[in-house]
């Protein structure tokens, strides 16, 4: 927008830049603080730090609950994404491509887990698991399967959202073109539709993994001894002491998620899908 002489637009641009910088600062300040404190040498977090150290990373490595928690979280997140993404993708296909009674309701229901607080959903699941255990006479609530089933609930809304978006942007003429060239409906799906949906599915898998990997509130009631996820292990640690060991663990966690996003972005342009 041109307002009078050249001085004003430049002032406007300067203001815009400042606002953008501020927004980024607000977004990244907590992350930055965690990464910084993980290197502070003092046990009680203070500013400025008396010195820098790797000690907290070594400390974290020495604590078996963090390593075990990391492995459990990794397992659960991979399994949850592996189970949830195909279900969510199938649901997204049904929502976008077919018409059935109650479609709106089903679509809302699939996104509902996003709206329910994790602790509430977790308690609900806990009670449901107890009930199911009594009926089926087998362990559910402290098992990996039980935890994975709960985390699948986290992955489905994300998958549905992302895949629905990618399906809506898909040029259906390409599918007609394939049929026109002699491809049967199944071949069209396998050779044309699925590859064109790939960015959405890849993004869905990544977000599903992250959702599960970082989840605390839903998991807290459902984990069992020896099967504690990393965020729960961190909370447990926090109950007894506060020191930068947690910051070190969190930094590693942030690093993993960050690397995952960068790698995914190389395959699909995330900003275009999400």
């Amino acid at each position, binding site marked *: 927008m041109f307002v009078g002489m050249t001085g004003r637009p430049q002032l406007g641009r300067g203001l815009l830049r400042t606002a953008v910088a501020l927004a980024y600062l607000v977004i990244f300040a907590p992350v930055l603080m965690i990464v910084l404190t993980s290197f502070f040498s003092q046990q009680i977090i203070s500013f400025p730090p008396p010195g820098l150290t790797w000690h907290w990373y070594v400390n974290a490595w020495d604590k078996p609950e963090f390593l075990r928690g990391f492995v459990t979280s990794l397992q659960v997140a991979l399994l949850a994404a592996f189970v949830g993404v195909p279900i969510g993708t199938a649901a997204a296909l049904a929502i976008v491509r077919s018409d059935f009674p109650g479609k709106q309701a089903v679509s809302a229901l699939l996104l509902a887990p996003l709206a329910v607080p994790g602790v509430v959903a977790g308690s609900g699941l806990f009670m449901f698991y107890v009930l199911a255990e009594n009926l089926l006479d087998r362990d559910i609530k402290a098992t990996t399967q039980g935890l994975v089933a709960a985390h699948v609930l986290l992955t489905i809304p994300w998958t549905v959202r992302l895949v629905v978006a990618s399906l809506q942007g898909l*040029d259906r*003429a*390409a599918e*007609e*073109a*394939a*049929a*026109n*060239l*002699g*491809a*049967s*409906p199944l*071949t*069209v799906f396998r*050779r*044309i539709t699925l*590859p*064109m949906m*790939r960015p959405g599915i890849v993004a869905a898998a990544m977000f599903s993994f992250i959702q599960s990997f970082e989840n605390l509130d839903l998991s807290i009631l459902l984990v069992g001894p020896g099967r504690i996820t990393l965020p729960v292990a961190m909370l447990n640690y926090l109950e007894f002491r506060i020191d930068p060991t947690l910051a070190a663990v969190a930094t590693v966690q942030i690093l993993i998620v960050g690397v995952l996003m960068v790698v995914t972005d190389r395959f699909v342009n995330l900003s275009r899908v999400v």
Partner: protein
Amino acid sequence: MASLGIEKLTKRFGTSLAVDDLDLSVNEGELVALLGPSGCGKTTTLRMVAGFLPPTSGRVLFDNEDVTSLPAYKRSTGMVFQSYALFPHMTAAQNVGFGLEMRNLGAAERDSKVGEALKLVRLSHLAGRLPRELSGGQQQRVALARALVINPKLFLLDEPLSNLDAKLRSEVRIEIRALQQRLGLTTLLVTHDREEALTMADRLVVMEGGKVRQIGTPRELYDEPQDAFVADFVGRCNILPGRRESESRFRTVGGLLLTVDTAANESNNANAFALRPERISISPGANGETQGRVEAVTYLGAQTEYHVRIGNELFVVVRPTPGASEPLAALKPQDPVSLQWEPKAPRLVPQTS
């Protein structure tokens, strides 16, 4: 190549009639264009021929064989889509080869046919590119090659030029027409662009509201339109509503009395006088039978357009732009002029609501 027959084809969407009792036959090697405004049913017709849409009633025949219930993937038509609909995850060569793959051709034979097809559209050097790495014109040629390589029974074009810029469009128009004639392709072309239809088609079908208005060669439709809608749709036209007063006199609604040839009308319910702007000649000064005043002169480069008011009626006249020293070149608004046309130039047609 096959011939195409369409018999009493009807498509109803809910309560609206998209295509209404359409009959049409396209001979082997012929290019027929479906021309009409958007919503006239031309694309719906094409989609029913391709098999993407089941007709409500009626039949589609390839070589006199009923294919109405055959799914699209068994019809063996080659279609070029308006958006080109290339497969974004496949290279140009893979796109072209897809149809051959579906026909279970061996890799060697496939490669040689893909090579030929790409050569036909002069894209051999870009075989390995993905669609997004190609320009619009190049994508369009890949789509052409992809449709032709399978040796289709029928060549279907859905607004194939609408996404190209004006200059490229006229080139590609000529190119597609040449290819179609050389390969003897039975072709159905859907377009809303009259110039495209007139220049490319052997015959034209003008459609409106799901119905055929007129079928004929470009010249027949341009020179002998059956109604005012066709007259106006296939080219610019002065259409003056009114009524016939005698064998040779026509009175417009605005009160203007015009002389017409007795043969100018074959229709009994003619109530409009239709005259193409380029069939009128114009000369400065009030000395002819039909006199009026210039309202506007618009310079269009090769041609100049004159708006002339005669009584209550406005005529549009299009002439080749006069040289600077010709008297016509000095014409300006409010100047008196006289108009003239050959007695056989105007048509009396029924007006259409």
